[in-house]
């Protein structure tokens, strides 16, 4: 009797819990999703409807002119091209360097692992700071060149840890030993045995480094002053935040048209700049979750 009673009470309190839990999660879902959705619908609605608060759930006064004007803007196109280059070149270098270091540190019988490890991890805890870094870059002559968008941050210690953990735990050491006994050099073992088995970690590194390059803004702000080298994020800032630049499609759009689309253009610029990352997002999810897990639990 007593048992049955307490059991019933428990299930009732559990049902209340579930109700509250699901309600709160739905609320959280809406809070996160709605601003994103709003950006999408505002970019294809007419500016006046957006400014009057008439756009709430679906586009109103549908137009694609804003996108047309965004793509006709020379600086956005240039920034896009620059960012693609910085991301591709930077990420490639990142991955080669990270894999080499991580694979080396994963060899438990390798001499000198300790000092190398110390050399790397100390940079996580201490840095020279902005100004000395700036002065070193200047004496290297990379300020105001494309190099300054590619070289800094070549290896992230956090990513080295993830990759090293993966090499240690997910590649059977018997396989590497066998390759070694068969006379394969360390480099051959890496390229022919380890790399083909490392697709998940390569995906993780590509995502972490790639998104980092795509979204990077600070280095461009501090180290670049030539317009033609600006990455997309810096162009975005000039358009959306400082207002130093307007989206103007010279000769095509009249002043009236520009005013009419000014608001939608802002949203369109946001979409256009985020689309590559968001398109890849569904494919990435599996991998970045894996990456975070390796980094957090096994490391």
């Amino acid at each position, binding site marked *: 009797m007593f048992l049955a009673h307490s059991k019933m009470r428990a299930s009732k309190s559990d049902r209340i819990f579930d109700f509250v839990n699901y309600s709160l999660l739905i609320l959280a879902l809406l809070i996160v999703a709605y*601003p994103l959705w709003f950006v999408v619908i505002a970019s294809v609605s007419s500016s006046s409807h957006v400014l009057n*608060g008439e756009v709430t759930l679906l586009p109103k006064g549908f137009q694609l002119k804003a996108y047309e004007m965004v793509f006709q803007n020379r600086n956005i196109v240039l920034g896009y091209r620059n960012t693609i280059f910085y991301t591709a070149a930077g990420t490639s270098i990142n991955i080669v*360097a990270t894999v080499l270091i991580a694979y080396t540190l994963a060899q438990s*019988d390798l001499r000198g692992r300790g000092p190398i490890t110390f*050399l790397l991890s100390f940079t996580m805890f201490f840095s020279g700071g902005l*100004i000395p870094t700036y002065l070193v870059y200047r004496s290297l002559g990379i300020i105001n060149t494309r190099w300054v968008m590619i*070289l800094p941050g070549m290896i992230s210690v956090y990513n080295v840890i993830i990759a090293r953990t993966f090499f240690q735990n997910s590649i059977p050491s018997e396989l590497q030993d066998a390759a070694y006994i068969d006379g394969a050099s360390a480099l051959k073992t890496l390229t022919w045995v380890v790399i083909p088995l490392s697709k998940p970690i390569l995906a993780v590194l590509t995502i972490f480094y790639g998104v980092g390059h795509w979204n990077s803004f600070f280095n461009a702000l501090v180290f670049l002053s030539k317009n033609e080298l600006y990455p997309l994020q810096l162009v975005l800032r000039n358009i959306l935040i400082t207002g130093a630049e307007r989206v103007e499609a010279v000769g095509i759009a009249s002043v009236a048209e520009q005013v009419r689309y000014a608001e939608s253009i*802002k949203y369109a610029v946001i979409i256009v*700049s985020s689309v590559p990352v968001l398109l890849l997002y569904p494919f990435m999810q599996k991998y970045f979750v894996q990456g975070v897990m390796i980094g957090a639990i096994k490391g």
Partner: protein
Amino acid sequence: MRTLTAKTSRHTLTIERSVRKYWQLYLLIIPVLAYVIVFNYAPMYGVLIAFKDYKPGTPLLSGDWVGFKHFKRFFESIYFERTVRNTLQISLYSLVVGFPMPILLAIMLNEVRHLWFKKTVQTVTYMPYFISTVVMASMILIFLRPETGLVNLFLQKIGRESIPFMTRKEMFKTIYVLSGVWQSTGWGSIVYIATLSGLDQEMFEAAIVDGANKVQRILYITLPCLLPTAIILLILNAGSLMSVGFEKVFLLQTDLNLEQSDVISTYVYRSGILGAQHSYASAIGLFNSVVNFILLISVNQISKRVSSISLF
């Protein structure tokens, strides 16, 4: 958790044998290590200009030694109190509000039985993390604009007055922190969700048999299981209390909110890069790095003593 010291399953080879076996790897990582020395360690050495009077355009370590002159100047200026206060306030505020949120989300998701719903919430809440800081700051500025911003349109619709959020300096920190929560709660929850998915389900089944309800199971099983992970992350966060990410603060900063939004990193940028006071700004940067370093070490020591959980 995130230490670099690896397991030693095999004995370390002698130098000669190690070189013979791994000479290619040694050779290949030399450029990478050289890179680290030039790009990370040379600036650490260059920080010596904080103790000199460096003049722009002269060789890096040329000026005269001036001891702690630049440090003194910073400590005695009005900027010292202002930037340190804002930096600490913003990071503490972020920590207090932002730190528990991912744990909460992970626990709530752990209680969801409909897999499709759980997946949907995860997919959507992770997404903002991939938005760039520039886009994030733009969205904040656009949505919070007076009169025609999304938030103010809503306020007007429910009969309230429009609030000029961005010109109210006292709102800066709240805007900074809450937008941070919006952007990174989902991402932050991944670690905890992973921890929870690795838990032994038998514990929960035993608790159910014993008549524990969901709230009790969360309090006595789920939460304690998340504690070690939470402590490690807390250490990491506490170690960076004196460093607030530059980008978002900088992008949201205006003359109107400067008093509340000026942090150490934005002041270093203004005085060092824009103002070309290289030695002075280096001194501020060094002061900041040293404080960060001490913070991280001491929090780590404290945690080691109290809970035997530590980073290194």
